[in-house]
């Protein structure tokens, strides 16, 4: 009787602790969002979103080129990372016990733990120093290097969630391996894959060091991928540490734009998954 009571008490205590932790995490997120919103909303208007930065002392000025630069480099990173990441995940799912699979898994786990600065330095050394040229292209490649392990590992998990019975049924019905992967496993795992990809996109969009070391920054419009490019995180970094109040305010505005974009992307992805699951 007594042990039952203690068990119950422990249970509810732990439950409470979990709830409290969950609330704390949520509270932290809400506080960050609230603070960024309060500080940043004053800076945001249409000209801010579409114009070039102005020099110190000149009024106005915006983050147009940084928005485009960030969007372009993240898109480029995704374009390179998604096919590689998904393909690697399919290999890992199909051949889970080979030595190559173990090595790939290990390499990807290590890569996720490498500081983004090191990845930036790697691309800087391999690309920028070789060509003598900072470029948006190098920035996209650095972001792709950051994204690949995140996509690969999460995609493998998602593919593994597709039940073995389904795969066996497919093969039993005479479908080839290729057909099974393309028409059964991938569609069944799409929701999870999208979530993994969004996670990687959000990670890439917020990176400062890899972009600063490869695409540098710019105060002008991007005309081609071989030029230096502005990006939101680098702009925030520069403006936040400047002594000028108007730049500091713009840093808050840019931070709000960045956070809001990532939030909207994530919410959209989640809604997409929910919607898909309901249809099935």
């Amino acid at each position, binding site marked *: 009787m007594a042990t039952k009571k203690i068990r119950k008490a422990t249970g509810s205590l732990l439950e409470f602790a979990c709830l409290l932790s969950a609330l704390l995490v949520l509270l932290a997120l809400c506080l960050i969002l609230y603070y960024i919103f309060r500080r940043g909303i004053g800076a945001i208007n249409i000209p801010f979103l579409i114009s070039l930065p*102005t020099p110190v*002392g000149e009024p106005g000025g915006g983050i147009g080129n940084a928005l485009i630069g960030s969007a372009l480099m993240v898109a480029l990173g995704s374009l390179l990372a998604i096919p590689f990441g998904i393909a690697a995940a399919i290999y890992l799912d199909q051949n889970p016990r080979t030595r190559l699979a173990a090595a790939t898994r290990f390499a990807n786990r290590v890569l996720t733990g490498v500081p983004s600065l090191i990845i930036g330095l790697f691309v800087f050394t391999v690309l920028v120093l070789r060509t003598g040229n900072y470029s948006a292209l190098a920035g996209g490649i650095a972001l792709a290097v950051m994204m690949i392990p995140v996509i690969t590992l999460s995609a493998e998990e998602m593919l593994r969630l597709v039940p073995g019975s389904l795969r066996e049924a497919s093969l039993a019905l005479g479908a080839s391996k290729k057909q099974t992967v393309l028409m059964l496993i991938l569609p069944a795992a799409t929701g999870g894959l999208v979530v993994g990809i969004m996670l990687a996109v959000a990670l890439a969009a917020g990176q400062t060091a890899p972009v600063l070391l490869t695409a*540098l920054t*710019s105060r*002008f419009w991007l005309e081609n991928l071989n030029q*230096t490019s502005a990006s939101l995180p680098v702009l925030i970094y520069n403006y936040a*540490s*400047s*002594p000028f109040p108007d730049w500091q305010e713009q840093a808050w505005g840019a931070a709000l734009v960045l956070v809001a974009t990532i939030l909207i992307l994530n919410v959209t992805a989640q809604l997409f998954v929910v919607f898909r699951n309901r249809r099935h």
Partner: protein
Amino acid sequence: MMKRKTSFSSFFTVLICLAILVSLLPAAAFTQTRRPISIEFDGRGITGDVSPIIIGGRTLVPMRVIFETLGADVNWNESTRTVSGNKAGRVINLVIGSRTATVDGRSVALEQPAQINNGRTLVPLRFVGEALGAQVEWDSARAIVRIASTEASRRRTPVEQALRLTTGGATFPFPLYTRLVTEYRRITNPAVTIDYASVGSGAGIRGILARTFDFAGTDAHLTDEQMAQVAPNQILHIPTVMGAVAVTYNVSGVGTGLRITPDVLADIYLGVITRWNDARITALNPRVQLPDQRITVVRRSDSSGTTFIFTDYLSEVSERWQRDVGRATAVRWPGTTVGAHGNAGVAAKVSQLPGAIGYVELSTAIQGRLNMAQIRNRAGNFVTPSVEATSAAAAGLVRQMPRDMRMSLVNSPGPEAYPIVGLTWILVYRDQTDLAKARATVDFLRWAVVERNLEPFAADLHYAPLPEGVITRVREQLQTINHNGQAIWR
């Protein structure tokens, strides 16, 4: 007799003819120089119903031609016989026959007055043009008066195709450079876009050595080891402006202007003096009530040109600092210190921590209305940092400037000099590999430094302009920049 009479009359005729000729000579001479004079405005020819004339070495033109060309309103007052022109609020008045004109009410002496000729009012061209903000040039060989509007005279065309230069480095002059490159881009056609990334002096130096930057900004000149990485005299140091580093503090009850000597400053940063009411500080400030508070030393955590100037100064005034710490963009700080990122970071840390002392560039201190210490200079005077005190520091040291312009401005002997002052440089290769980039680089530096176009921007941001002697040296340095042995400067 007849013969004689004839000879006399012929003599008389010749005499008369000669007299007439002589009397006509000046007129002939005058008509000879009276080639038609043409006027060009920003390269376009301008025609009036009466052509310009030269009187007494001055060109006079019909008033309507010049005023309307320059976009000014013109009025004629018959009763006072006054021509008045008005352009964007600037009013000039000329009275016919008067050698005095007025510009916005100020009197200006004229060599030739406005006059009426053949029923037309003629006004002196150069005076009117320049009073209305245009540039007037006389091409005597082709008899052309060239007028350039201010807008057009500022246009520059260093290259044939639009061009982008990738540059970067020092954070300290970054605000100034953003304004300069924006202005330079506006006046170059085709546009020269110079992208300056604020990545710090250290990254700027690495960038120029690795040739990833077309030119670089730095507050710390290259060391001899760094110079040895490239061919001798290959990298030029072009100074642009000078700046001061202010010592700021947050001591309860103490306002701006605390007096500090070099040895006290060094000992605070060395951790020898640890409390604000230390006898050595109170002795300097007998009228200030200093609290018994621990001194918190704030320093930059990032690699910084401001740190270089500050530690350069401490090395100059303290043997122990020179021996134990030295000068660099980042040093191993002795004692207990608090690190902060950027000038703004140091400013924020100092204002948050009671008892804190820190160093920031002058514009940060002024913008943030921070307390600034008066530092005793070499002449023994306590000086508050300012643009003037920065200029005074340079005046005392220019004569000792080395050929390559790698020099320190700290601890200047001038009586009015603030002692913690530094130059900021642009590093550029003497032998350029890309002709178009070389032309844009030289033209930009010439426009900004040699032609002093950076000075109005610099004053706004509390940087001090370079002394004349340094600008002459900059010109000489820029003239050595070449592409395949061909000098770029024209």
